[in-house]
């Protein structure tokens, strides 16, 4: 079963306790609304009593001025009730919205801590549902779930107390129907719930079928299977309709049944209460008030079903939200460390891979016993046939993933012993695809370092990256808005901005994944020059796709089948006639001929 199909309990003590925990900063508000509720209920229940007094004391005694006083009092209760209802509605929303606001912040911040492997497993769409929709469902707990059930409890209690107080015999007669109501409502409620579940599973099945049809429509058409698929769909569709009708049957019966029992209670009241009036044990006004109270007694019971469904949905959402919050990131800071390794004055390698094994899944090794080192200030080009290996090297250097076996050392220290942020400040990873955030060009250049970068630094980085001209050509320069992640920029322009961004970030070690997408020759020349300035004097590990990069590199590592198979300078490797010479011919010789 899909997790979206599950309908659980309407009340789960464990989940409620956690939600209660999240209301802690807003307890004051919660208490206030708990005060308002009984007051409002009290006023509401006062009204039928006023009618009773009006009838008994004034109308039947033909006391018109007295009736005016009661009417005035009635008006006052109306005004007060209005004020209380406003306060009540706003207070519950205020609490609910604030709790939601906090939960969204908590979820978002939690997601920022999660590791890359987590995002491989969880599609973006589902995580968005957690942060936005599931949190919204929690609000229902406040506006129409717990709080309104609480309100109903107050009303029911109030009605029972008042009725018993007014005339306990008559009250008991009215309540005689309650067991019938509870049993009947309970039975139909259960049936309605089961049939509703049936509707949901059938709907999910139908939608899954439909989705698959839409994706595979070409296959259906190619095999001329439209008729058969239509009949299959038709049977799911008919099945759903039948389930819906069954659900309607129980829903409507429940509703009509409660109403009929309510009317029967009125009849009972008239019969018994009428006798009491004749006998003088009950006033006319008392009887009328009783009729009204009975009405208010049955309303909340009738609406219980809808609230049950709301609560159920909220519980499912709460389960998912807390499930996400309880997922700990696989990559965590070592608490004991913190300081950035001081200026690299030693002679050891800047980056070293020692017998590294790594697999994204199970035993499908991407790196197997891979070892190499990069000295300080050296520019190393990684080449190899397509595969995950090269990009993985760059990812492991910044600890986006942890090695399965072996060690990755940066400045002689295992990356797992680094403070995560310090490591990522030290080793800058420039991914292949240039990702631009919505916001201005300047925001995209400064990224993490708003305060620490001066305007001059931005200018000189732009100049060094050959991006100054392109920014100047934008109507609003640095303040130009990059809508929808920079779609208004060309591939070449995006790459130039990425180079400028890396220059501003200014990491000691660079892990650069060169873009493969081809750009026009003019942009290519600009990018090549910009990249040369970026890597100058910087320890760099470059996943190379440019001829200029491998020609310039101090050392080339040939990565194949998870291992470094050849290493050396371009000319040497080419002369030795090994793997590299074949790769070179493939990538720069023939393929582009």
């Amino acid at each position, binding site marked *: 079963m899909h997790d979206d199909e599950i309908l659980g309990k309407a009340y789960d003590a464990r989940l409620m306790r956690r939600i209660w925990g999240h209301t802690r900063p807003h307890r004051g508000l919660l208490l206030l609304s708990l005060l308002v509720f009984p007051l409002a209920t009290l006023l509401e229940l006062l009204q039928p009593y006023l009618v009773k007094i009006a009838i008994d004391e004034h109308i039947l005694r033909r006391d018109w001025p007295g009736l005016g006083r009661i009417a005035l009092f009635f008006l006052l209760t109306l005004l007060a009730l209005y004020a209380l209802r406003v306060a009540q509605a706003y207070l519950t929303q205020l609490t609910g919205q604030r709790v939601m606001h906090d939960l969204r912040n908590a979820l978002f911040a939690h997601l*920022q801590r999660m590791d890359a492997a987590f995002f491989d497993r969880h599609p*973006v769409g589902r995580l968005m549902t957690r942060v936005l929709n599931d949190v919204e469902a929690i609000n229902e707990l406040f506006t129409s779930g717990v709080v309104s059930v609480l309100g109903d409890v107050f009303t029911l209690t109030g009605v029972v107390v008042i009725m018993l107080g007014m005339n306990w015999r008559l009250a008991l007669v009215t309540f005689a129907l309650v067991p019938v109501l509870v049993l009947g409502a309970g039975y139909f409620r259960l049936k309605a719930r089961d049939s509703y579940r049936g509707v949901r599973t059938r709907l999910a099945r139908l939608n899954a079928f439909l989705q698959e049809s839409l994706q595979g429509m070409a296959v259906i058409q190619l095999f001329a299977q439209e008729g058969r698929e239509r009949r299959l769909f038709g049977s799911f569709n008919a099945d759903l309709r039948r389930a819906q009708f069954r659900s309607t049957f129980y829903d409507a019966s429940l509703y009509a049944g409660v109403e009929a029992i309510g009317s029967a209670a009125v009849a009972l009241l008239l019969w018994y209460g009428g006798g009491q009036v004749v006998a003088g044990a009950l006033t006319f006004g008392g009887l009328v008030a009783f*009729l009204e109270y009975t009405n208010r007694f049955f309303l909340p019971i009738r609406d219980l079903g809808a609230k049950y469904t709301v609560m159920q949905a909220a519980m499912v959402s709460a389960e998912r939200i807390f499930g996400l919050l309880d997922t700990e990131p696989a990559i965590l800071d070592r608490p004991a460390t913190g300081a950035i390794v001081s200026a690299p004055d030693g002679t050891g390698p800047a980056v070293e891979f020692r017998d590294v094994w790594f697999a994204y899944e199970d035993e499908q090794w991407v790196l197997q016993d891979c070892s190499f080192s990069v000295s300080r200030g050296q520019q190393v080009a990684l080449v190899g046939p397509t595969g995950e290996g090269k990009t993985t090297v760059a990812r492991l250097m910044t600890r986006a993933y942890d090695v399965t076996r072996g060690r990755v050392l940066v400045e002689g220290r295992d990356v797992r012993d680094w403070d995560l942020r310090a490591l990522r400040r030290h080793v800058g990873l420039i991914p292949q695809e240039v990702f631009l955030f919505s916001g201005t060009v300047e925001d995209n250049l400064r990224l993490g370092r708003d305060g620490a970068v001066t305007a001059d630094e931005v200018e000189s980085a732009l100049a060094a990256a050959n991006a100054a001209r392109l920014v100047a050509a934008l109507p609003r320069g640095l303040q130009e808005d990059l809508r929808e992640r920079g779609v208004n920029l060309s591939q070449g322009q995006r790459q130039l901005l990425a180079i400028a961004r890396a220059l501003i970030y200014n990491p000691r070690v660079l892990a650069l994944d060169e873009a493969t997408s081809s750009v026009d020759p003019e942009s290519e020349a600009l990018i090549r020059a910009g990249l040369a300035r970026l890597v100058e004097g910087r320890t760099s590990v470059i996943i190379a796709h440019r001829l200029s990069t491998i020609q310039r590199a101090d050392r080339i590592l040939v990565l194949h089948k998870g291992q470094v198979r050849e290493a050396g300078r371009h000319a040497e490797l080419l002369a030795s006639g090994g793997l590299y010479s074949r790769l070179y011919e493939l990538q720069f010789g023939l393929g582009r001929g």
Partner: protein
Amino acid sequence: MSTAHRLLRYLLRYRWRYAAGAGCLVLATGFSLGIPWTVKLAVDALGRSAPVGRYVLIILLLAAAHGAARLGSRFTIIGAGQWVEHDVRADLYAHLQALPPAFYHRRRTGDLMSRASNDIAALRMLAGFGIVMLIGTSLTFLGTLGAMWAIDPWLTLYALAPFPALVLVAKRFNHDVEVRSTAVQEQLGTLSAKVQENLSGMPVVRAYTMEEREIAGFGRLNREYLARSLGLARTQAVAWPMLGFISGLGALIVLWLGGKAVVDGRITLGAFVAFNGYLSYLAWPTIALGWTLANVKRGLASMQRIVEILDEPEPPQPARPAPGMLETGPIEFRHLSFGYEGRGPALSDVSFTVAEGGLVAVVGPTGSGKSTLGLLLCRLFEPPPGSVFIGGVDVRELPLDRLRRSVGYVPQEAFLFSRPLRENVLLADDGLGDDRLEAVGRTAGIEADVAAFPDGWDTVIGERGLTLSGGQRQRVALARALAADPPFLVLDDALASVDAAKEWEILLALRAAVRGRTTLLMTHRLRAAEEADHVVVIDQGRVVEQGRHADLLAAGGLYSRLWRVQQLEDELANA
């Protein structure tokens, strides 16, 4: 025809159910109005100290009749709404089946799904519960006013005096609420765009240690969302209790002026009680009115979105499907030029022939236009007239399903259904037996894999079943194309995910199995081309070379370069 008319046509199919439902609602309203009236009679009887037994009985009967009529109305109308939903959904599905791939290139699956689920749900609400509410509230309004009028016209007017204020207030607040909820929705859109951007850009966020900045940015948007939500909450908090307040004013007027009427002897105490009862009947429909109207509006908007799909033109279909397959024959492309909508030419002046029973390989770099040949042959996209022939006939003149039944087409993207393997392979004709299943499984090189699966050919695959590897999927798709024994075969890079050795094995088996079938093979692996009778080399939509493998190799053109690339790749793979 307007959207409302389209909807009406569906509704009219169930006119008798709706009519019966409306009848039930009339009865239900009548019975429910009878109850306060009987209470009036009973109270008046009590005033005379007369017995009330029979009124009690009448109320019980009215309550039962009311319940029954209410049930009847819901079964008929909501049931009819569900039928309308069923019919619209069925029509939508049938129509979607007739739409060409070009449509699916234009539309995202998510958007289509949303129309087929959310919009249809909104339509059901309109056609079912929405209509119950529309008819029910109108009847309640009219009936209740009539009953109150009958008791005392003046008191009715006084009691209703606050209601125009109610309408005004509702109108003003409705506008306010609409403005504010639009603002909330907009901010929600901004917020979700932010989350989406952050999650998709997570590698960059991590690399540039932007976490704090992102959290702060989200926090700002979240705070604004809170502020706007609270703005809406304030408006609603002020507006909603107003409804209760104004109907409370009505009760106050009845208490005061109605009380005076009793004091003056104009009406009886029973009438006073009944009047109060009727007034409370009015409160709920007033509150529900806004909801009902919004429901109708939303349902019509949804119908509009569904109609948009229903109005997508279907490609012309022959009047009667012609069963069976074509005789075998040659495949011919004559000066074929073709471009996808909104893009440059994909194929320019392509001409070549696959002789009857022959095997022609089309090779070329990725994006050279190879796949387009297969799509046009099966008319997934419409080729220009007089350019693609099968068995000597222009494909455009053949009945679509006869053409497609005759061509076994294996695309690179092997789409399989989440059903048992057996159903996937026997998709074209489930009348075929296990012998055929085994035979095509053997040819496609999948039989050993299937034997290892838990339920063999009955293993369910896909999202809720066994996940197949890319190579396995392609081999199943190949078996599927072979199952019905079509006279023509098109393999579009159909074994790209199968490893080279296995591919070779399958090709040999296939060579024996396809004997007598006219086969068009598109591939970027030249090993397969070596086996062909004739090789066509395509680059950027043009035929640059064609001939036999050995001749092309000797010519030293693109084919020989591609051959060298493959050689290098093989060497690297084995290094």
